[in-house]
């Protein structure tokens, strides 16, 4: 093409408008004919060629000689023209194929990411459980991991010679033998002491959800560690019933595992609840038909629960008389976080949660 660039008559607005409109019309005409890769390359050279491209000529002939006050309006028009040409080349008119574009990026290369850290899977599961209960009006409660025998056992109605009180089962602090039994310090074996501590501080009605670490003197294997995490809950008010316990947990399980999950309850035995129950949920892997994960039963044991034993209220009432078992009632429940997290994320060994292996943790990003 290589037409020369016409002489610019003047640098006023009208003259610029006229000159650039003419060039824009030429770009439009050319862009309409870009049906092949060759045509496209020719068009590019004609307009954008580094030495003889018409844009270069425009720049040399008009821009460089312009008086200072005309440089800005001229520059704007120049850039608009350049943009028009580039759009035509990048297929803005839809007439070119993607493969024809030179310098296009490899869309099949993986994206890069700014690295972010992850929430620990046990904390994630704990927080999920906690928020389900918060939505039902439960407030968070926490307590010490080193407990006295009184809060861990006595006030929860464990008889003095209960096997759990033995050092075979419970981790104890050194040099406790000389203290009265109820003052001896141990690693709490469950989060239930927080129930007692909270009730002593707050009169009913009370709804609390208690996450925390607990400890047992146990041999460790793929599914059990000597320390693990629990989430426990307590609801106390006038007229709290066993059917309320059932309804609350049934709702919570549906919120956690999906609305098709079913629950069922079996009699069990815990010193601090009566009646006591074990709750199962329909297997979340097979929907209840039976599979390897549920040992072909269709059900998975998930938590222990029950109505708070009046004796427990009796201990609390020594400090907080409003917990009169004749007037109020309540239920409590507790579940192991590791077990649920293992189920949710398909973790095969509980040790994974505590190794801090980056390859394990990063799977939860």
């Amino acid at each position, binding site marked *: 093409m290589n037409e020369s660039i016409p002489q610019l008559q003047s640098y006023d607005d009208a003259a610029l408008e006229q000159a650039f409109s003419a060039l824009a019309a030429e770009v439009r005409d050319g862009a309409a004919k870009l049906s092949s890769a060759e045509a496209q390359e020719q068009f590019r050279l004609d307009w954008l060629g580094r030495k003889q491209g018409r844009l270069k000529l425009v720049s040399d002939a008009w821009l460089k000689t312009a008086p200072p006050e005309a440089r800005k309006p001229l520059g704007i028009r120049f850039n608009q023209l350049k943009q028009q040409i580039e759009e035509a080349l990048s297929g803005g008119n839809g007439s070119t194929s993607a493969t024809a574009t030179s310098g296009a990026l490899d869309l099949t290369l993986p994206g890069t990411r700014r690295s972010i850290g992850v929430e620990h899977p046990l904390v994630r599961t704990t927080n999920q459980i906690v928020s389900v209960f918060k939505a039902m009006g439960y407030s968070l409660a926490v307590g010490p991991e080193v407990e006295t025998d009184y809060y861990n056992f006595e006030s929860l109605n464990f008889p003095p010679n209960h096997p759990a009180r033995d050092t075979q089962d419970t981790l104890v602090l050194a040099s406790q033998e000389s203290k009265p039994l109820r003052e001896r310090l141990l690693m709490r074996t469950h989060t239930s002491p927080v129930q007692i501590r909270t009730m002593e501080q707050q009169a009913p009605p009370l709804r609390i959800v208690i996450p925390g670490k607990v400890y047992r003197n146990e041999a460790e294997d793929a599914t059990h560690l000597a*320390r693990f995490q629990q989430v426990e809950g307590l609801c106390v008010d006038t007229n709290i*019933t066993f059917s309320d316990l059932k309804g609350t947990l049934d709702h919570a399980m549906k919120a956690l595992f999906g609305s098709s999950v079913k629950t*069922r309850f079996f009699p069990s035995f815990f010193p601090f609840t009566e009646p006591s129950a074990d709750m199962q949920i329909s297997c979340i892997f097979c929907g209840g038909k039976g599979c390897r994960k549920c040992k072909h039963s269709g059900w998975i044991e998930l938590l222990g629960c029950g109505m708070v034993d009046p004796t427990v209220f009796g201990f609390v009432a020594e400090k907080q008389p409003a917990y009169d078992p004749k007037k109020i009632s309540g239920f409590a429940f507790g579940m192991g976080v590791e077990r649920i997290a293992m189920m949710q994320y398909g973790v095969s060994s509980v040790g994974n949660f505590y190794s801090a292996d980056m390859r394990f943790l990063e799977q939860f990003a």
Partner: protein
Amino acid sequence: MKILSAWLREFLPAISADDRQLADDLTLRGIAVEGVFNVDGGSLYEMDITTNRVDAMNHYGIAREAATIYNVALKPLSATLPKAIAAKPYPVKIDAPELCGRFTAQVIRNVKIGQSTGKLAEKFAQLEQKPIFNAVDASNYVLLGMGHPTHAFDLDKLEGGIVVRRANKGEKLKLLDGTERVLEADDLVVADEKKAVALAGVMGGWDTMITAETKNILVEAAWFDQASIRRSSRRHGLHTDASHRFERGADFNAAPLANALVCELILAACGGELHGEMVDVVIAEAAKKTANRAAVSLSVAEVRRHLGATVDGKGIAAEIIEQYLTALGCSLQPTGDGAYAVTLPSWRLDLEREIDLIEEIARVYGYNRFANTFPAFAGAVQELPWEPKHAAVRRKLQALGFNEAVSSTFCSAEEATNFSGGGVPMGNPLSEEAGMLRPSLLPGMITMLEYNLNRDIADVALYESGTVFSGSTAHVSERQMICLGTTGAASATALSSADNALFYEMKGAVELLASIFTHSQLSFTAQSPAWLEPGRGAQVSVDGVAIGWFGQLSGAEAQRRKLKQAVYLCELDLQKLYALPLRQPVSREVSRFPAVERDFSFFFADSIHWEKISGAVASLGIAEMSSPQPIEIFRDAKGKSVPAGEYSLLLRVVFQSPERTLRDEEISTWCGQIVTALTALGGRMRA
């Protein structure tokens, strides 16, 4: 525990459920059948009976549960014995009435000891119960059948009558398992006039046991105090079928029946005849605490208050209560107003209170027949003050790329000393490495970093929030801390060399954490504890309160752990951090007027720290100037482009006014002031 369905059915003539159904129905009532296996004539149930239900640890007890569930008749248990040959009652004396509440004894003479045959042998085979001699098997059969432990002595080895007494301290007794035990005064023994012949309720003695030569037998069935049996069983490490039952509370009234049932079996299997009437010594005090307990009052309203709605909408009715409790062995006396005085069965010592009866009613009714209801609630969720703070801290650390981790609550004594100067020791630690309560999160963090490094994972960034412990075994205090740990290959930046990039990254994390909270001053001071490398660690203070430390782990500690590369750590006290209020972001108008950047390139002596430089510039008090930023720092080890002992600093300031475009002349003036200030610090402008 193994149970034969056919044996259960001997007591349940009217039952119609098949074995599978029976297993399911028992399980739903808390008498858990864990496995059902086919055996000749029925099923073998593998059962898991909760420790409070000692009454159901035998066939008759489980049959009673089934009779209650299905509301069918339970065949009464009784023994049919021939008339005894007249003889003087066998002498029995209870010298420890607080430990032995009842003792029955029956003499059988002229027996022939041999192997068991017939129905008993078949049942033993199915239950995998080892047969011994027919007379001994009779005792075990009764235990399996109705649950009360009994014992048979070789009468001719007994010297004089029976005395139930506390052992003499140091007294020796060889037991059936062949071991000789040295007894304590707290052990209860069955003795004759010369010696102990059984560790009461736990195991019989060797010298008086039934042998192939035994001709005459004394059958014992007794009731012993739970706590005493538990102590003896523990003390001697002997857990037997008998101790298992006695320590959980045996049936006070079952002793004579159990004795008679054993006698009936022995007479049938070994021949012989009864001599004298059965001796039955009863301690009235013990009977009052067990068989003759005071009635418990139970009201229908209280049952409904605790149990709530049923699926059928009717709730628990009085008829249901009467039916279930009666079938379980209670007797109910109406006392008006929908209440009863309930007399408790002697075999259910676990039932003591109204709530225990309510549980029985719920259990037999079936938990899953109660409705799912939702309690009304007038309260509101109370957020703990630290909850949103902790959430913000965790979110920010994750955004920086730190992975959350959980380490051990315990550490070794050496770690406790090195990182905190001591800790609180455990009495029965899981291992020596876990001998102390952790006084710091640092040892656990280092272990986690080390774990990754040992697996060739060279880039690690972790944080843990958790409890640390201080104080003594007399009193322990707990505090919540947060710990950060990083290691890895870092590239040099414009401000830091590869060697110290992670240090400044950690400092940046600390600054970000502080920025979550309202405070006026965050400061870093060079004093640092022994676990930090000298010159590469700092104490962190917010508004003058020290909240923790950060820096590079000391060479000595890294050496001890054989760490392959430098490790950076930070530990902050969350209590102190969370004492500050959350910072509420406040928006400032962004100026519409152009900003002007000016860079200054200076050489400074290494001793002139950034704080001095930025302070000198800031103190010029130029309102239109933003705080100065270091853009590039450069040192030259060879001393060529930058003289040794000095560094070159590229410093940038930005001038901007919210009200107007700044004039060139005023900018020049300010730049001049900055140059003067920097020169006054000993800086030399670069050419």
